[in-house]
Protein backbone atom coordinates (compact mmCIF):
# COMPACT_ATOMS: atom_id res chain seq x y z
CA UNK A 1 0.00 0.00 0.00
CA UNK A 2 1.34 3.40 -0.96
CA UNK A 3 1.57 6.04 1.72
CA UNK A 4 2.51 9.68 1.55
CA UNK A 5 5.63 10.80 3.36
CA UNK A 6 3.27 13.30 5.05
CA UNK A 7 1.80 10.48 7.14
CA UNK A 8 5.16 9.46 8.59
CA UNK A 9 7.24 12.60 8.83
CA UNK A 10 7.22 16.36 9.28
CA UNK A 11 9.40 18.91 7.61
CA UNK A 12 10.51 22.56 7.53
CA UNK A 13 11.92 24.32 4.48
CA UNK A 14 14.35 27.22 4.35
CA UNK A 15 16.40 29.00 1.71
CA UNK A 16 19.84 30.38 0.97
CA UNK A 17 19.82 32.24 -2.33
CA UNK A 18 18.55 29.89 -5.03
CA UNK A 19 19.00 26.81 -2.82
CA UNK A 20 16.13 25.02 -1.09
CA UNK A 21 16.92 23.39 2.24
CA UNK A 22 14.34 20.95 3.56
CA UNK A 23 14.33 18.55 6.50
CA UNK A 24 12.51 15.23 6.89
CA UNK A 25 11.82 14.22 10.50
CA UNK A 26 9.93 11.01 11.30
CA UNK A 27 7.21 11.27 13.97
CA UNK A 28 8.43 7.91 15.28
CA UNK A 29 12.22 7.72 15.54
CA UNK A 30 11.99 3.98 14.74
CA UNK A 31 11.02 4.93 11.17
CA UNK A 32 14.35 6.69 10.59
CA UNK A 33 16.11 3.66 9.08
CA UNK A 34 13.24 2.96 6.69
CA UNK A 35 13.17 6.63 5.59
CA UNK A 36 16.94 6.48 4.96
CA UNK A 37 16.27 3.55 2.63
CA UNK A 38 13.30 5.02 0.77
CA UNK A 39 13.78 8.79 0.77
CA UNK A 40 17.02 8.84 -1.17
CA UNK A 41 18.50 11.90 -2.90
CA UNK A 42 17.54 10.35 -6.26
CA UNK A 43 13.95 9.75 -5.14
CA UNK A 44 13.65 13.35 -3.95
CA UNK A 45 15.14 14.72 -7.16
CA UNK A 46 12.64 12.68 -9.18
CA UNK A 47 9.70 13.75 -7.00
CA UNK A 48 10.65 17.46 -7.16
CA UNK A 49 11.70 17.41 -10.84
CA UNK A 50 9.27 20.22 -11.79
CA UNK A 51 10.66 22.43 -9.01
CA UNK A 52 14.34 21.62 -8.56
CA UNK A 53 16.63 21.82 -11.59
CA UNK A 54 19.97 21.44 -9.81
CA UNK A 55 21.45 18.66 -7.70
CA UNK A 56 20.00 17.21 -4.51
CA UNK A 57 22.33 16.36 -1.64
CA UNK A 58 21.14 14.30 1.34
CA UNK A 59 22.63 14.55 4.82
CA UNK A 60 21.91 11.88 7.44
CA UNK A 61 21.65 12.92 11.09
CA UNK A 62 21.23 9.68 13.08
CA UNK A 63 21.80 11.45 16.43
CA UNK A 64 18.48 13.26 16.05
CA UNK A 65 16.87 10.78 13.59
CA UNK A 66 16.45 13.32 10.80
CA UNK A 67 17.38 13.82 7.16
CA UNK A 68 18.28 17.09 5.46
CA UNK A 69 17.97 17.71 1.70
CA UNK A 70 19.81 20.57 0.05
CA UNK A 71 18.48 21.28 -3.45
CA UNK A 72 20.19 23.75 -5.77
CA UNK A 73 18.51 25.85 -8.49
CA UNK A 74 15.14 25.45 -6.86
CA UNK A 75 13.74 28.92 -6.23
CA UNK A 76 13.52 30.68 -9.62
CA UNK A 77 16.64 32.69 -8.80
CA UNK A 78 15.99 33.13 -5.10
CA UNK A 79 14.13 35.37 -2.72
CA UNK A 80 15.17 38.81 -3.90
CA UNK A 81 14.77 38.53 -7.67
CA UNK A 82 12.33 35.63 -8.18
CA UNK A 83 9.05 36.17 -10.05
CA UNK A 84 7.47 33.28 -8.15
CA UNK A 85 4.74 33.52 -5.51
CA UNK A 86 6.61 31.86 -2.64
CA UNK A 87 9.98 33.46 -3.27
CA UNK A 88 11.59 31.84 -0.20
CA UNK A 89 10.24 28.40 -1.09
CA UNK A 90 9.10 28.09 2.52
CA UNK A 91 5.96 26.15 1.55
CA UNK A 92 8.01 23.52 -0.30
CA UNK A 93 8.26 21.36 2.82
CA UNK A 94 4.73 20.28 1.91
CA UNK A 95 5.77 19.57 -1.69
CA UNK A 96 8.31 17.07 -0.40
CA UNK A 97 5.78 15.51 2.00
CA UNK A 98 3.54 14.76 -1.04
CA UNK A 99 6.06 12.07 -2.01
CA UNK A 100 4.55 8.58 -2.19
CA UNK A 101 6.38 5.57 -0.87
Amino acid sequence: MKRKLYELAHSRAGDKGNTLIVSVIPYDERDYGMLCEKVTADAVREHLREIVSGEVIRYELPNISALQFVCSQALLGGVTTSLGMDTHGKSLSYALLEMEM
Partner: protein
Amino acid sequence: MLRIGSGAGFAGDRLEPAVLLAERGGLDYLVLECLAERTIALAQRRKLKDPAMGYDSLLEKRLEPLLPILKKNGIRLVTNMGAANPVAAAEKIVEIAKRQGIAIKVAAVTGDDVLGQLSPGQRTLEAGEPLSSYGPLISANAYIGADALLPALETGADIVVAGRVADPSLFLAPMMHHFGWSWEETDKLAQGTVIGHLLECAGQITGGYFADPGKKDVAGLAELGFPFADVEPDGSAVISKVEGTGGVIHLGTVKEQLLYEVTDPYAYLTPDSTVDFSSVSLRQLGPDRVQVSGGKGSGQPETLKVSVGYHAGYIGEGEISYAGSNAPARARLAGEIIRERLTARSFSDIRIDLIGCNSVHRTSFGHGEEPYEVRLRVAAKASSQAVAEQVGEEVEALYTNGPAGGGGARKYVHEVVGIVSVLIPRDKVQTQVTIREC
Protein backbone atom coordinates in the same frame (compact mmCIF):
# COMPACT_ATOMS: atom_id res chain seq x y z
CA MET B 1 24.22 29.40 34.48
CA LEU B 2 23.35 32.15 32.00
CA ARG B 3 19.84 32.81 30.73
CA ILE B 4 19.51 34.36 27.26
CA GLY B 5 16.13 35.14 25.72
CA SER B 6 15.19 35.65 22.10
CA GLY B 7 12.78 38.54 21.60
CA ALA B 8 12.59 38.80 17.79
CA GLY B 9 13.19 36.39 14.95
CA PHE B 10 12.91 38.86 12.08
CA ALA B 11 12.43 42.57 11.42
CA GLY B 12 8.64 42.41 11.44
CA ASP B 13 8.25 40.09 14.42
CA ARG B 14 5.62 40.62 17.14
CA LEU B 15 6.49 42.93 20.04
CA GLU B 16 4.40 41.46 22.88
CA PRO B 17 6.32 38.18 23.45
CA ALA B 18 9.58 40.10 23.91
CA VAL B 19 7.99 42.38 26.52
CA LEU B 20 6.60 39.36 28.37
CA LEU B 21 9.96 37.59 28.21
CA ALA B 22 11.76 40.64 29.63
CA GLU B 23 9.17 41.06 32.37
CA ARG B 24 8.79 37.49 33.54
CA GLY B 25 11.62 35.48 32.00
CA GLY B 26 14.31 36.09 34.62
CA LEU B 27 16.74 36.87 31.80
CA ASP B 28 20.37 37.95 31.95
CA TYR B 29 20.39 38.90 28.26
CA LEU B 30 17.76 39.63 25.66
CA VAL B 31 18.67 39.31 21.97
CA LEU B 32 16.65 40.91 19.16
CA GLU B 33 17.52 39.55 15.71
CA CYS B 34 15.96 41.84 13.13
CA LEU B 35 17.99 41.71 9.89
CA ALA B 36 17.14 39.65 6.82
CA GLU B 37 19.32 39.36 3.72
CA ARG B 38 18.24 42.50 1.95
CA THR B 39 17.03 44.55 4.94
CA ILE B 40 20.39 46.26 5.26
CA ALA B 41 20.43 47.28 1.58
CA LEU B 42 17.06 48.99 2.02
CA ALA B 43 18.36 50.61 5.24
CA GLN B 44 21.45 51.83 3.38
CA ARG B 45 19.20 53.74 1.01
CA ARG B 46 17.35 55.39 3.89
CA LYS B 47 20.73 56.45 5.29
CA LEU B 48 21.75 57.97 1.93
CA LYS B 49 18.62 60.13 2.00
CA ASP B 50 19.12 61.10 5.66
CA PRO B 51 22.42 60.42 7.51
CA ALA B 52 20.51 60.16 10.82
CA MET B 53 18.48 57.20 9.51
CA GLY B 54 19.36 53.72 8.26
CA TYR B 55 18.71 51.78 11.46
CA ASP B 56 15.76 49.38 11.92
CA SER B 57 12.53 51.29 11.32
CA LEU B 58 10.79 49.51 14.24
CA LEU B 59 13.58 50.35 16.71
CA GLU B 60 11.61 53.04 18.51
CA LYS B 61 8.46 50.91 18.61
CA ARG B 62 10.38 47.97 20.12
CA LEU B 63 12.51 49.85 22.64
CA GLU B 64 9.88 52.25 24.02
CA PRO B 65 8.14 49.47 25.97
CA LEU B 66 11.32 47.40 26.54
CA LEU B 67 13.77 49.97 27.97
CA PRO B 68 12.09 50.48 31.39
CA ILE B 69 11.72 46.69 31.86
CA LEU B 70 15.32 45.97 30.83
CA LYS B 71 16.52 48.64 33.28
CA LYS B 72 14.31 47.43 36.14
CA ASN B 73 15.36 43.79 35.71
CA GLY B 74 19.02 44.43 34.91
CA ILE B 75 18.84 42.72 31.51
CA ARG B 76 21.45 43.53 28.86
CA LEU B 77 20.25 43.81 25.28
CA VAL B 78 22.15 42.67 22.18
CA THR B 79 20.66 43.48 18.78
CA ASN B 80 21.47 43.97 15.10
CA MET B 81 18.83 46.70 14.79
CA GLY B 82 21.62 49.12 13.91
CA ALA B 83 21.28 47.81 10.34
CA ALA B 84 23.12 50.29 8.08
CA ASN B 85 23.68 52.85 10.87
CA PRO B 86 24.43 51.47 14.37
CA VAL B 87 25.70 54.81 15.73
CA ALA B 88 22.47 56.59 14.76
CA ALA B 89 20.58 53.69 16.38
CA ALA B 90 22.56 54.20 19.62
CA GLU B 91 21.76 57.92 19.53
CA LYS B 92 18.08 57.18 19.03
CA ILE B 93 18.09 54.71 21.95
CA VAL B 94 19.72 57.32 24.20
CA GLU B 95 17.11 59.84 23.09
CA ILE B 96 14.29 57.43 24.05
CA ALA B 97 15.98 56.69 27.41
CA LYS B 98 16.34 60.42 28.17
CA ARG B 99 12.68 60.94 27.42
CA GLN B 100 11.86 58.10 29.85
CA GLY B 101 14.25 59.42 32.52
CA ILE B 102 16.45 56.32 32.32
CA ALA B 103 20.26 56.40 32.57
CA ILE B 104 21.72 54.14 29.93
CA LYS B 105 24.97 53.24 28.17
CA VAL B 106 24.77 52.06 24.57
CA ALA B 107 27.66 50.57 22.56
CA ALA B 108 27.39 50.76 18.77
CA VAL B 109 29.47 48.24 16.79
CA THR B 110 30.49 49.36 13.29
CA GLY B 111 32.86 48.17 10.61
CA ASP B 112 30.73 45.59 8.81
CA ASP B 113 30.18 48.06 5.93
CA VAL B 114 32.85 47.06 3.38
CA LEU B 115 31.37 48.60 0.23
CA GLY B 116 34.53 50.68 -0.26
CA GLN B 117 36.77 47.62 -0.07
CA LEU B 118 35.30 45.48 -2.83
CA SER B 119 36.66 45.42 -6.36
CA PRO B 120 34.39 45.20 -9.42
CA GLY B 121 36.22 42.09 -10.60
CA GLN B 122 35.45 40.10 -7.48
CA ARG B 123 33.37 37.03 -8.31
CA THR B 124 30.16 36.06 -6.52
CA LEU B 125 29.71 32.78 -4.66
CA GLU B 126 26.33 32.21 -6.33
CA ALA B 127 27.24 32.39 -10.01
CA GLY B 128 30.99 33.02 -10.18
CA GLU B 129 30.29 36.21 -12.16
CA PRO B 130 32.17 39.46 -11.44
CA LEU B 131 30.32 42.05 -9.30
CA SER B 132 30.50 44.46 -12.24
CA SER B 133 28.07 42.24 -14.18
CA TYR B 134 25.27 43.00 -11.70
CA GLY B 135 23.32 46.25 -11.38
CA PRO B 136 24.73 49.29 -9.52
CA LEU B 137 25.80 48.25 -6.00
CA ILE B 138 23.82 49.60 -3.03
CA SER B 139 25.48 47.99 -0.05
CA ALA B 140 28.12 45.47 1.01
CA ASN B 141 28.16 44.20 4.58
CA ALA B 142 30.44 41.56 6.02
CA TYR B 143 28.95 39.08 8.48
CA ILE B 144 30.91 39.95 11.60
CA GLY B 145 31.05 37.62 14.59
CA ALA B 146 31.23 37.44 18.36
CA ASP B 147 34.76 38.92 18.32
CA ALA B 148 33.25 42.23 17.16
CA LEU B 149 30.65 42.22 19.97
CA LEU B 150 32.96 41.23 22.85
CA PRO B 151 34.73 44.63 23.17
CA ALA B 152 31.30 46.28 23.25
CA LEU B 153 30.14 43.97 26.06
CA GLU B 154 33.38 44.66 27.93
CA THR B 155 32.55 48.37 28.11
CA GLY B 156 29.72 47.44 30.48
CA ALA B 157 27.14 48.88 28.09
CA ASP B 158 23.50 48.09 28.88
CA ILE B 159 22.78 47.77 25.17
CA VAL B 160 24.95 46.58 22.29
CA VAL B 161 23.64 47.58 18.88
CA ALA B 162 25.30 46.32 15.70
CA GLY B 163 24.56 45.88 12.00
CA ARG B 164 25.36 42.79 9.90
CA VAL B 165 26.30 40.29 12.61
CA ALA B 166 25.84 36.56 11.94
CA ASP B 167 22.65 35.67 13.81
CA PRO B 168 24.08 32.99 16.16
CA SER B 169 26.96 35.33 17.09
CA LEU B 170 24.46 37.67 18.78
CA PHE B 171 23.89 34.84 21.29
CA LEU B 172 27.42 33.42 21.40
CA ALA B 173 29.02 36.75 22.37
CA PRO B 174 27.19 37.05 25.73
CA MET B 175 28.11 33.40 26.49
CA MET B 176 31.80 34.02 25.73
CA HIS B 177 31.74 37.25 27.74
CA HIS B 178 29.99 35.69 30.74
CA PHE B 179 31.88 32.38 30.91
CA GLY B 180 35.21 33.71 29.65
CA TRP B 181 35.44 31.08 26.90
CA SER B 182 38.58 31.44 24.77
CA TRP B 183 38.87 31.05 21.01
CA GLU B 184 40.70 27.76 21.58
CA GLU B 185 37.68 26.17 23.28
CA THR B 186 36.22 25.31 19.90
CA ASP B 187 33.61 22.78 21.08
CA LYS B 188 32.13 25.27 23.56
CA LEU B 189 31.97 27.89 20.81
CA ALA B 190 30.33 25.34 18.51
CA GLN B 191 27.80 24.41 21.18
CA GLY B 192 27.10 28.13 21.83
CA THR B 193 26.58 28.60 18.10
CA VAL B 194 24.06 25.73 18.08
CA ILE B 195 22.14 27.42 20.92
CA GLY B 196 22.25 30.72 19.04
CA HIS B 197 20.99 29.06 15.87
CA LEU B 198 18.12 27.43 17.80
CA LEU B 199 17.09 30.76 19.37
CA GLU B 200 17.63 33.12 16.44
CA CYS B 201 14.15 32.69 14.92
CA ALA B 202 12.43 33.25 18.29
CA GLY B 203 8.94 31.66 18.01
CA GLN B 204 10.07 29.08 15.45
CA ILE B 205 11.29 26.85 18.29
CA THR B 206 8.30 27.38 20.61
CA GLY B 207 5.72 26.09 18.14
CA GLY B 208 5.54 28.95 15.67
CA TYR B 209 5.65 27.80 12.03
CA PHE B 210 5.04 24.24 13.23
CA ALA B 211 1.30 23.64 13.64
CA ASP B 212 -0.61 21.40 11.24
CA PRO B 213 -4.09 20.77 12.71
CA GLY B 214 -4.73 17.15 13.56
CA LYS B 215 -1.16 16.18 12.80
CA LYS B 216 1.03 18.65 14.70
CA ASP B 217 -1.22 20.51 17.11
CA VAL B 218 0.08 23.51 19.05
CA ALA B 219 -1.99 25.03 21.86
CA GLY B 220 -2.19 28.77 22.49
CA LEU B 221 -0.61 29.96 19.24
CA ALA B 222 -2.32 33.35 19.59
CA GLU B 223 -0.24 33.98 22.71
CA LEU B 224 2.89 32.22 21.46
CA GLY B 225 5.74 32.64 23.93
CA PHE B 226 9.33 33.23 22.86
CA PRO B 227 12.23 31.02 24.00
CA PHE B 228 15.14 31.36 26.36
CA ALA B 229 18.14 29.11 26.94
CA ASP B 230 19.74 28.29 30.26
CA VAL B 231 23.36 27.87 29.26
CA GLU B 232 25.83 25.96 31.43
CA PRO B 233 29.56 26.78 31.61
CA ASP B 234 30.31 23.76 29.35
CA GLY B 235 27.97 25.10 26.66
CA SER B 236 25.15 22.62 27.08
CA ALA B 237 21.77 24.27 27.51
CA VAL B 238 18.10 23.79 28.19
CA ILE B 239 15.66 25.56 25.87
CA SER B 240 12.47 26.66 27.58
CA LYS B 241 9.91 29.48 27.75
CA VAL B 242 7.93 31.48 30.30
CA GLU B 243 5.34 29.34 32.07
CA GLY B 244 1.78 29.98 30.96
CA THR B 245 2.69 31.31 27.52
CA GLY B 246 1.32 29.64 24.41
CA GLY B 247 3.14 27.26 22.13
CA VAL B 248 5.20 24.16 22.83
CA ILE B 249 8.85 23.10 22.96
CA HIS B 250 9.55 19.44 22.22
CA LEU B 251 11.91 17.32 20.13
CA GLY B 252 9.82 18.01 17.02
CA THR B 253 10.01 21.80 17.23
CA VAL B 254 13.69 21.72 18.17
CA LYS B 255 14.68 19.34 15.35
CA GLU B 256 12.85 21.45 12.74
CA GLN B 257 14.62 24.57 13.94
CA LEU B 258 18.03 22.89 14.29
CA LEU B 259 18.02 22.06 10.57
CA TYR B 260 16.34 25.30 9.42
CA GLU B 261 18.30 27.09 6.66
CA VAL B 262 21.38 24.92 7.26
CA THR B 263 23.01 24.14 3.90
CA ASP B 264 25.55 21.72 5.35
CA PRO B 265 24.69 20.24 8.74
CA TYR B 266 28.14 18.64 8.97
CA ALA B 267 29.80 22.04 8.57
CA TYR B 268 27.59 24.98 9.57
CA LEU B 269 29.70 28.04 8.95
CA THR B 270 29.64 31.24 11.01
CA PRO B 271 32.36 33.87 11.59
CA ASP B 272 33.06 32.16 14.94
CA SER B 273 33.01 28.46 14.20
CA THR B 274 32.40 25.65 11.75
CA VAL B 275 29.90 23.43 13.55
CA ASP B 276 29.09 19.76 13.09
CA PHE B 277 25.36 19.49 13.80
CA SER B 278 25.45 15.71 13.45
CA SER B 279 27.10 15.53 16.86
CA VAL B 280 24.22 17.38 18.59
CA SER B 281 22.06 15.43 21.06
CA LEU B 282 18.58 16.43 22.16
CA ARG B 283 16.74 15.25 25.26
CA GLN B 284 13.25 16.12 26.48
CA LEU B 285 13.61 16.90 30.21
CA GLY B 286 9.99 17.82 30.85
CA PRO B 287 7.13 19.83 29.38
CA ASP B 288 8.57 22.65 27.25
CA ARG B 289 12.13 21.83 28.31
CA VAL B 290 14.63 20.36 25.84
CA GLN B 291 18.30 19.87 26.60
CA VAL B 292 20.82 20.48 23.82
CA SER B 293 24.38 19.19 24.04
CA GLY B 294 27.25 17.69 22.10
CA GLY B 295 27.82 20.34 19.39
CA LYS B 296 31.38 20.11 18.09
CA GLY B 297 33.30 22.38 15.79
CA SER B 298 36.55 23.84 14.55
CA GLY B 299 37.84 27.39 14.83
CA GLN B 300 37.13 30.70 13.14
CA PRO B 301 37.22 30.65 9.31
CA GLU B 302 39.83 32.74 7.48
CA THR B 303 37.29 34.63 5.40
CA LEU B 304 34.01 36.36 6.12
CA LYS B 305 30.95 36.28 3.89
CA VAL B 306 29.88 39.64 2.48
CA SER B 307 26.27 40.24 1.47
CA VAL B 308 26.15 42.62 -1.48
CA GLY B 309 22.94 44.47 -2.43
CA TYR B 310 22.44 45.76 -5.98
CA HIS B 311 19.77 47.45 -8.06
CA ALA B 312 17.97 44.73 -10.03
CA GLY B 313 15.22 46.74 -11.74
CA TYR B 314 11.50 46.46 -11.08
CA ILE B 315 8.79 43.81 -10.91
CA GLY B 316 5.28 44.64 -12.06
CA GLU B 317 2.41 42.41 -10.92
CA GLY B 318 -1.30 42.14 -11.64
CA GLU B 319 -4.01 39.82 -10.31
CA ILE B 320 -7.61 39.10 -11.23
CA SER B 321 -10.09 36.42 -10.07
CA TYR B 322 -12.43 34.05 -11.92
CA ALA B 323 -15.06 31.92 -10.16
CA GLY B 324 -17.81 29.39 -10.91
CA SER B 325 -18.09 26.93 -13.78
CA ASN B 326 -15.06 26.68 -16.07
CA ALA B 327 -13.19 29.28 -13.97
CA PRO B 328 -9.69 27.74 -14.49
CA ALA B 329 -10.19 27.66 -18.28
CA ARG B 330 -11.20 31.33 -18.33
CA ALA B 331 -8.21 32.22 -16.14
CA ARG B 332 -5.87 30.24 -18.42
CA LEU B 333 -7.27 32.06 -21.45
CA ALA B 334 -6.71 35.38 -19.67
CA GLY B 335 -3.12 34.35 -19.00
CA GLU B 336 -2.53 33.49 -22.66
CA ILE B 337 -3.91 36.86 -23.74
CA ILE B 338 -1.67 38.71 -21.27
CA ARG B 339 1.40 36.74 -22.35
CA GLU B 340 0.77 37.67 -25.98
CA ARG B 341 0.25 41.35 -25.15
CA LEU B 342 3.31 41.62 -22.89
CA THR B 343 5.55 39.70 -25.30
CA ALA B 344 4.54 42.12 -28.05
CA ARG B 345 5.78 44.93 -25.79
CA SER B 346 9.18 43.22 -25.45
CA PHE B 347 8.77 41.88 -21.92
CA SER B 348 10.98 38.81 -21.80
CA ASP B 349 10.79 37.54 -18.23
CA ILE B 350 7.10 36.81 -17.58
CA ARG B 351 5.51 34.50 -15.03
CA ILE B 352 1.85 33.47 -15.11
CA ASP B 353 0.32 31.57 -12.19
CA LEU B 354 -3.15 30.32 -11.36
CA ILE B 355 -3.50 30.90 -7.63
CA GLY B 356 -5.46 27.95 -6.27
CA CYS B 357 -4.03 25.55 -8.88
CA ASN B 358 -0.28 25.74 -9.35
CA SER B 359 1.07 29.10 -8.19
CA VAL B 360 2.97 28.10 -5.07
CA HIS B 361 4.80 24.90 -6.07
CA ARG B 362 4.57 25.32 -9.87
CA THR B 363 2.93 21.87 -9.94
CA SER B 364 0.07 20.17 -8.10
CA PHE B 365 1.33 16.56 -7.84
CA GLY B 366 -1.83 15.25 -9.51
CA HIS B 367 -4.31 16.96 -7.19
CA GLY B 368 -6.77 17.04 -10.08
CA GLU B 369 -10.08 18.41 -8.82
CA GLU B 370 -11.13 21.79 -10.19
CA PRO B 371 -11.28 24.63 -7.67
CA TYR B 372 -14.46 26.74 -7.50
CA GLU B 373 -12.46 29.92 -7.88
CA VAL B 374 -9.04 30.79 -9.16
CA ARG B 375 -6.92 33.93 -9.20
CA LEU B 376 -4.72 34.75 -12.14
CA ARG B 377 -1.38 36.29 -11.24
CA VAL B 378 0.99 37.85 -13.75
CA ALA B 379 4.48 39.07 -12.85
CA ALA B 380 7.21 40.43 -15.09
CA LYS B 381 10.55 42.16 -14.76
CA ALA B 382 11.28 45.57 -16.22
CA SER B 383 14.15 48.02 -16.11
CA SER B 384 12.02 51.04 -15.18
CA GLN B 385 9.05 51.68 -12.94
CA ALA B 386 6.99 53.05 -15.83
CA VAL B 387 7.44 49.89 -17.89
CA ALA B 388 6.76 47.65 -14.86
CA GLU B 389 3.43 49.47 -14.35
CA GLN B 390 2.22 48.17 -17.72
CA VAL B 391 1.95 44.63 -16.30
CA GLY B 392 -0.77 45.53 -13.80
CA GLU B 393 -2.43 47.86 -16.31
CA GLU B 394 -2.77 45.03 -18.83
CA VAL B 395 -4.25 42.71 -16.19
CA GLU B 396 -6.73 45.40 -15.15
CA ALA B 397 -7.65 45.88 -18.82
CA LEU B 398 -8.88 42.25 -18.88
CA TYR B 399 -12.10 43.66 -17.40
CA THR B 400 -13.23 44.76 -20.86
CA ASN B 401 -10.63 43.05 -23.06
CA GLY B 402 -10.47 39.48 -21.70
CA PRO B 403 -12.60 36.44 -20.83
CA ALA B 404 -15.99 36.57 -19.06
CA GLY B 405 -16.51 37.19 -15.39
CA GLY B 406 -13.14 38.51 -14.22
CA GLY B 407 -13.24 40.44 -10.93
CA GLY B 408 -11.18 42.01 -8.17
CA ALA B 409 -8.19 43.18 -10.19
CA ARG B 410 -5.21 44.55 -8.23
CA LYS B 411 -1.87 45.88 -9.44
CA TYR B 412 1.51 46.38 -7.80
CA VAL B 413 5.00 47.54 -8.69
CA HIS B 414 8.07 47.09 -6.55
CA GLU B 415 11.72 47.88 -6.89
CA VAL B 416 13.99 44.84 -6.76
CA VAL B 417 17.11 44.77 -4.62
CA GLY B 418 19.21 41.77 -5.58
CA ILE B 419 21.59 40.08 -3.15
CA VAL B 420 24.79 38.20 -3.98
CA SER B 421 27.69 37.12 -1.79
CA VAL B 422 31.46 37.40 -1.95
CA LEU B 423 34.21 36.49 0.53
CA ILE B 424 36.63 38.90 2.19
CA PRO B 425 39.77 38.09 4.27
CA ARG B 426 38.75 38.64 7.89
CA ASP B 427 41.75 40.89 8.63
CA LYS B 428 40.38 43.41 6.12
CA VAL B 429 37.32 43.93 8.30
CA GLN B 430 38.12 46.23 11.23
CA THR B 431 35.28 46.76 13.69
CA GLN B 432 34.94 49.63 16.16
CA VAL B 433 32.88 50.40 19.25
CA THR B 434 31.26 53.82 19.77
CA ILE B 435 29.65 54.70 23.11
CA ARG B 436 26.61 56.91 23.60
CA GLU B 437 25.11 57.39 27.06
CA CYS B 438 22.91 59.54 29.24
